[in-house]
């Protein structure tokens, strides 16, 4: 395959488009058909073979424009013709000789060798652009060139001075070119990875440590995550219990054939769309993390049809309508501060919350419902009401408890996790986005 295409595909992959080997082969065939003559045709053709979603098309467009704007070095040095007496040749540094000869192909080769030698691909931050340009220059032998220029200056001869000036010009142009090269390299091959790097870090960061300014960032990541999970799980699917004959159905189906069993029906199960009840602790002990729980709850609320949300502290209230009525920041703020809601925010009382839930909202739970409790189980030594939790567990399909504290702290002090835990189907520690993602994947 052609080098240009290979590099381009590499740049695309870097920008987040997944290009498989067979697709690169398609792209190569396309190239054979349409050639490089017409830029538009080339762009459309490669887009058809390589970018397969509207989102990818956008990325592709940007990448294409950036990639094929690479100019040749030749445009920069076309006017370089430096007169030199042959006798001084043997004393000159290699880079000086290169610039004097003005052979663009050789200069490019030397540049590319330098680039691969210092491993420009390791560059990750924009602050590294200058150091890397420097290193390219020094690998190409800029010291030798500088020494030559200095020596010519020192001779004090008019001719030599002129030569030094010409060399200085050539050096400046080379410098500019390399800086431009590094810039474009950064844009094409590094820029996008930085975005994914931030995302990766945020995903693994403890939710309580995420700062206010990253809130929007988190929102985007959470949305993306929920959307993806929903894409995978939102459709009702049938799973087949392999090899089990559904005798009743088979008989019914074959009545028309008067006995012979032509159509055999196997047993199958329908997997229902998830139905969720989420109960979230918003007290002070989980204050740092509750914002993200709510954020997540909000996103879930947007994509899952059957979901009821409750928050509690002293008592428990139904807040499903808040998510429907307000935009995300406002909804999260309202729920966090409890403003305008009938909720007391002083001391968490899990027992009271379970009583409230059991008395008023139990009808939301049936044998298809998954109940999720988000909280640290710190009950301020109130009555834990474990019997009610057991009732909830018995009536629901699954009861999941997500605790933001790490496991060793469970059961210490006023934490009732040691008593609540065994009553739940699943108990998990959950304090990074990745935890959340994995758990939600399980639920759906």
């Amino acid at each position, binding site marked *: 395959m052609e080098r240009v295409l290979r590099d381009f595909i590499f740049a695309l992959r870097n920008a987040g488009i*997944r290009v*498989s080997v067979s697709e690169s082969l398609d792209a190569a065939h396309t190239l054979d058909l349409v050639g490089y003559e017409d830029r538009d045709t080339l762009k459309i053709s490669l887009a058809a*073979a390589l970018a397969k979603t509207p989102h990818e*098309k956008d990325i592709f467009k940007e990448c294409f424009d950036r990639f094929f704007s690479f100019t040749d070095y030749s445009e920069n040095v076309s006017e370089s013709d430096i007169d030199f007496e042959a006798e001084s040749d043997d004393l000159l540094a290699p880079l000086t000789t290169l610039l004097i000869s003005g052979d663009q192909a050789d200069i490019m080769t030397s540049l590319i060798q330098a680039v691969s030698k210092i491993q420009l691909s390791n560059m990750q931050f924009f602050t590294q652009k200058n150091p890397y340009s420097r290193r390219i220059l020094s690998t190409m032998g800029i010291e030798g060139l500088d020494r030559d220029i200095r020596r010519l200056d020192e001779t004090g001869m008019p001719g030599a001075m002129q030569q030094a000036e010409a060399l200085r010009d050539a050096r400046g142009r080379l410098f500019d070119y390399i800086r431009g090269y590094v810039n474009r390299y950064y844009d094409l091959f590094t820029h996008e990875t930085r975005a994914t790097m931030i995302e990766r870090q945020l995903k693994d960061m403890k939710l309580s440590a995420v700062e206010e300014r990253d809130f929007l960032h988190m929102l985007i990541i959470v949305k993306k995550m929920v959307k993806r999970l929903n*894409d995978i799980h939102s*459709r009702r699917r049938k799973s087949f219990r392999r090899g089990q004959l559904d005798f009743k159905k088979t008989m019914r189906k074959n009545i028309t054939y008067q006995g012979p069993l032509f159509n055999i029906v196997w047993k199958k199960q329908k997997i229902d769309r998830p139905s969720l009840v989420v109960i979230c602790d918003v007290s002070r002990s989980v204050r740092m993390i509750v914002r993200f729980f709510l954020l997540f709850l909000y996103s879930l609320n947007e994509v899952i049809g059957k979901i009821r949300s409750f928050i509690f502290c002293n008592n428990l209230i139904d807040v499903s309508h808040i998510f429907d009525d307000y935009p995300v920041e406002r909804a999260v703020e309202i729920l966090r501060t409890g403003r305008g809601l009938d909720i007391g925010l002083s001391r968490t009382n899990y027992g009271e919350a379970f009583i409230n839930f059991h008395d008023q909202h139990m009808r939301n739970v049936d044998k298809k419902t998954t109940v999720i409790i988000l909280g640290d189980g710190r009950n301020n030594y109130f009555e834990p009401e474990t019997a009610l939790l057991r009732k909830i567990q018995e009536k629901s399909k699954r009861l999941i408890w997500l605790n933001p504290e790490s496991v060793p702290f469970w059961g210490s002090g006023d934490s009732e996790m040691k008593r609540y835990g065994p009553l739940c189907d699943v108990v998990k520690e959950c304090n990074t986005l990745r935890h959340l993602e994995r758990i939600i994947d399980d639920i759906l």
Partner: protein
Amino acid sequence: MVRSNDNITSIENIQQAFRGVDYICSKQIATTLYLAFRLNKPILVEGPAGVGKTDLAKKTASFLNLPLIRLQCYEGLDESKSLYEWKYGKQLLYTQILKDKLNDIVREKNNLAESLEAIHQYDDIFFSPRFLEPRPLLSALQQRKGSVLLIDEIDKSDDEFEAFLLEILSDFQISIPEIGTIAAKSTPYVFLTSNNTRELSDALKRRCLHLFIPFPDAQLERDIINIRVPDLGDSLRFQLVSFIQQIRKLDIKKLPSISETIDWARVLLLLHADCLNMEIVRSTLNVFLKFEDDIAVVNDRLYELTQQATKEGHA
């Protein structure tokens, strides 16, 4: 495998030929078609509803003069409805008719094992192509002169069906357990359309060229109206397209598509309108707006929209 590629020599050629069957092909569409024809690849067409995805396949069929075989996808679509089915009735009927013959064969045998053995020699005749009911996919492969296969709204089908399509899309062959592998007599041109109600699998996308048809720009839309509703006056066409283009920028539930623009143009033609005014727009809004809320939104801004449209129409 032979394909009649005679009229597909260049991209411009395709554009021209499609104009001949009343379809305006943007360069993007034409280029993708050209590549698909040349590389023998299916095309996955995506885009908002009503931009002519299905029509593209239909017109391709009429321009290549090939039969169009259409498979409409829906949840629960399976092999027996898309690929082939055994004709149970016929099989039963034949066993009844041939009862005597079967008896003859069995009569001479002494015991059960021998009888079974004797019948075994003939059982293949009941599972031969004669008893096969071809469904769209199989019949597309059986066309001698080639065909255009349209797999419509693939996103509505189940994942399993998608996986099962892969064999057809990459190798143009299918496997029937009782008979064996059936290869295409001549490669069909395959179009898949999707409204993106769910993500398609990577495996499927990898096998296709991808074409995204967006809403057309004003110029293209005018051309389309011109070719589909040729009797509409020039100035009205300008105004109409400008109005629709403005509406697409509004925040409404369902944006009007090209097919709806065409419908509206036809309605205006029927009403003998020669320019847009508020009255006529208000009474025909429901032609291209399909939600009560959307109509309310547009109604509120009717004055400025109409003004803007008539202004641009004159310019």
